[in-house]
């Protein structure tokens, strides 16, 4: 059951974004920014977390989930450490996603070359 929900919810988010891409001139970079910020805002409003509990990977794998995690980390850091947490929470929460992408992408540059499209 959790697989079905993940498929439907994750698919639905992607489908909505595809409609956005096809109907506007939004570039992919902009779309990624919008997704992350939307996730953050929904997280701050307390809406994303219950949604993520229900949808599982369907809500956590899309970049909106990444945005939600960002705010979640921010909130935890503020609760625990007060003001200084404002400058810690974001990176703490996104550390795994950003570090893994940076590290693996860098390593990939050792092994792979850019390829011609056909």
């Amino acid at each position: 059951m959790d697989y079905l929900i993940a498929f439907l919810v994750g698919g639905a988010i992607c489908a909505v974004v595809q409609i956005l891409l096809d109907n506007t001139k939004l570039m992919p970079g902009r779309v990624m920014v919008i997704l992350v910020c939307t996730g953050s805002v929904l997280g701050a409003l307390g809406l994303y977390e219950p949604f993520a509990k229900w949808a599982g990977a369907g809500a956590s794998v899309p970049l909106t989930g990444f945005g939600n995690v960002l705010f979640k980390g921010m909130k935890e850091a503020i609760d625990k450490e007060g003001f200084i947490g404002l400058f810690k929470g974001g990176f703490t929460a996104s550390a795994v996603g950003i570090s893994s992408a940076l590290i693996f992408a860098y390593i990939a540059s050792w092994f792979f070359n850019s390829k011609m499209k056909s």
Partner: protein
Amino acid sequence: MAEKANNQTKMMGKQSISFQNTPYIVATSSVAGKKESEGPLGSLFDIVNDDPMFGKDTWEEAESEIMKEAADKVLMKAGLANTDIRYLVGGDLLGQLIATSFGIAELKIPLFGIYGACSTMGEAMSIGAILVDGGYADRVLSITSSHFAGAEKQFRFPLDYGNQRPYSASWTVTGSGAVIITDTNHKISSSGEADVVIKGITTGKIVDYGVKDSMNMGACMAPAAFETIKQNFEDFGVQPTYYDRIITGDLGYVGAKILIDLLQSAGYDISKNHMDCGIEIFDQESQDTHAGGSGCGCSAITFASFVYKKLKTREWKRVLFVPTGALLSQVSFNEGKTVPGIAHAVVIESEG
């Protein structure tokens, strides 16, 4: 020409020249990549290389190599040495024309490096013909190149980045085309074949109809082609049927439709004799190239192979060759500017 310019001036109308010391196109060469070789014109190219790197390390070096091969080939076909060439007029799409500077450095020919985006071949041939007609050069080599990967990297995304191309997007041609233009004393005539001559040119202005979509270059350039072609008709006092073919550079399917529409409403019907290099060079269905081919190389190799042959064999008597360019950069795009276009027309005839 319908109406010969008087002896004092070679200027025609507002933007055109009618040459008097007719420049001859004595040889052409075309170098193309794998995808181009699989297209409808594939068998006509002089050199085809399946290696997109052309044996080099980077996309930029690869493009320089393509240009070098095209220059060497055209010299060989004309039986000339680099020292026989007075001027080289050339350009490409890479920033600051690095494909040209590194590609032709070894040839040691005096260079005019020019930028007209994908219209560069028209510009290079125009300037070459002017030099020859004016007696400033006996032989000129005009050359342009483009490379799909280098253009993607510079203007769009890294090649391995996952994105979808809209139907209006074009596919940058990997290739380089070169022509040698000479005066009448240095023409090379071969028996049974016509001489190909440049009769005149119409130089385009920057034309901007306010389109901002860099993924729809055809629409950005069509107004430029429209204005140049219309001006050509007016300056020379001719009708579309004067030409066997009106050959635009890389408007693609979208741009070609717009051009025909615009000219139609200005009272000129070119729907019967219009052809677009971007449409000819790829098979849209099987090669998934969307709107068609583009890039400096697109019009250059189509002219150097397909069009030149038709003129040589007298199948076409007179063509108007109109490479089109979209004048944008990453910066102008990011700063929200429009994408202006330019188009340079060259009147080419087969003689004898």
